[in-house]
């Protein structure tokens, strides 16, 4: 180990550089954004250095796409146009929505891992913006979700799916998907802060699977037994899936029976559900974050 003085002392002169003595509200906000961006950059360096993890997280939806299109798809008749007819067009938007729902697990797992590995404590002992550890995660996840969507949509195009609406409708559809993902990021942050170790976070499958499957992702709720159908119809994931089907002009969906009010108002549901989830979970997540110093 080198014994010579390499700046441990003279770095005193260095320390005030980035730290203005008087912090105004504006400078605090600016630093919150910069710190958040540093964390986002860290997350993206992860992606570059370990693309395998990224591929792994996408593996599930990719396998589902292939399975539902090529294995079950030919037997499915949801549109009343005959077995296999139009199923790709029906299932792909569902798959997009499901990918957003499953992202919840990645957020929660990453937050718990950060806590478990001591990053949350280290960050909180530093003169950085305290919330950046969490907001950085959220922004990174949203960007991550956009990349996921681009890949899954690319795959959907390959297996024959086509958006039937105009450009504005198509963009709005992807916007609604990210809107749902954003709301679920807050749920994921809350759960990640609530849960104490990654072993438990791994079990979030048990929460996320029903959220993904008891929905209109693979089949219209009208085809399910009563109580399950009600659950599936009112599932926020269904609203988003149905709304984007409308925007993609998915053939055959006009023929679905409208059993619940929400069935006929999918776009409203896709806008309002995520807003409600956000309103509920932001304060919960903030409280849980403050509880870290309990």
């Amino acid at each position, binding site marked *: 180990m*080198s014994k010579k003085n390499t700046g*441990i*002392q003279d770095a005193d002169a260095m320390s005030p*550089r980035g*730290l203005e003595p008087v912090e105004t509200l504006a400078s605090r906000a600016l630093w919150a954004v910069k710190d958040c961006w540093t964390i986002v950059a860290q997350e993206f*360096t*992860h992606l570059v250095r370990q693309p395998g993890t990224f591929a792994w997280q996408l593996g599930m939806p990719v396998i589902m796409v292939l399975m539902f299109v090529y294995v079950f798809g030919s037997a499915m008749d949801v549109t009343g146009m005959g077995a296999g007819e139009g199923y790709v067009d029906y299932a792909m938007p569902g798959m997009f929505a499901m990918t957003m729902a499953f992202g919840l697990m990645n957020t929660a797992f990453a937050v718990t891992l950060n806590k478990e590995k001591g990053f949350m404590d280290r960050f909180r002992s*530093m003169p950085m913006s305290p919330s*950046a550890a969490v907001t950085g995660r959220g922004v990174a996840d949203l960007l991550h979700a956009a990349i996921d969507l681009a890949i899954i949509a690319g795959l959907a195009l390959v297996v024959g799916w086509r958006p039937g609406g105009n450009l504005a409708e198509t963009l709005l559809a992807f916007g609604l998907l990210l809107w749902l993902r954003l709301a679920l990021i807050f749920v994921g942050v809350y759960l990640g802060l609530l849960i104490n170790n990654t072993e438990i976070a791994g079990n979030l499958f048990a929460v996320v699977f029903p959220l993904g499957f008891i929905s209109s992702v693979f089949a219209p709720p009208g085809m399910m037994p009563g109580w399950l159908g009600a659950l599936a119809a009112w599932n926020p994931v269904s609203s988003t899936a149905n709304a984007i089907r409308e925007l993609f002009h998915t053939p055959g969906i006009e023929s679905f029976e409208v059993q619940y009010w929400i069935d006929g108002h999918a776009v409203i549901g896709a806008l309002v559900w995520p807003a409600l989830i956000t309103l509920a979970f932001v304060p919960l997540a903030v409280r849980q974050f403050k509880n870290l110093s309990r």
Partner: protein
Amino acid sequence: MTGRTWAIEAHGLTKRYRGKVALDGVDLQVSAGTVHGLLGPNGAGKTTTVRILTTLTRVDGGTASVAGYDVQRQSRQVRRNIGLTGQQTTVDDLLSARQNLIMFGRLFRLDRAAARRRADELLEFFGLEEAPGRSPKWFSGGMRRRLDLAASLILAPKVLFLDEPTTGLDPAGRREVWQAIRTMATSGTTVLLTTHYLDEADKLCDRVSVIDRGRNFVEDTPAGLKRRIGDEQLEVSIAHPDQLERAGALVGRITGTDPVVDREENTVTAPVADGVEALTSVAAAVRAESVGITDIGLRRPTLDEAFLQLTDGSVQPVGDTALEGSKR
């Protein structure tokens, strides 16, 4: 502050977790520029104390200041003046060593160029300059911990907190980290380190506070602490039981003590002040008097025995360094 500047000053810290008492009135005073040890068994309250002093945990009672700032009311100022290396090693295995330090540098609000410069300085300072592009995943335990230390030194903090810096490291890793801590201490940084190794406190610290069950027991220099814990024991194993009495008398005469003669183990044990002197004289004497021995050696009370003594009241606090908490 009155006259003397304390880098860390805490009075009567209390903390309970869901009714369970973790700290029961801990006091701590550390003068600037010294290395202070917080020594105690598992569950003593070391981590809780460090978390309170580094603004991570709210305190239930008592007051504490670090670098002159109140940890509750001036937490921002405290955070600008401290470094923390927690109980776990917190480095990002998916970034390279250098990228880790640059990331933390950016979060410490250095600009990009300064963060890079500081990262390179610290890599060199901690002897990691050969491995800047490698992931810490492939580092030895000692190297990982040194990188971890480097990350808490980016702003050259006035006060550095190290929570069990060498727990879980192999002997080589421990020596590396000790060396790093010593070098840092000579640059004037105040260090508070927690440990449950007596020898670590002995090697690194100017003063040591022993805590257990959330209370102070003793505060002293490492040398003073060892004196309280008790003298070394000289232990001689005798080859033939019929020579045991003679050996006992011999050891007693040379060491000037009343040795314990164990007839089952065939050993003679005597407390000695100067261990090496006693060992060589006794070894020479048994040879001159033709007493057959199979083993001779020095033994200190183990740490467990020492804690038991220090915390069960059998060791009376001596001198004016004893704190209130040790009177029970």
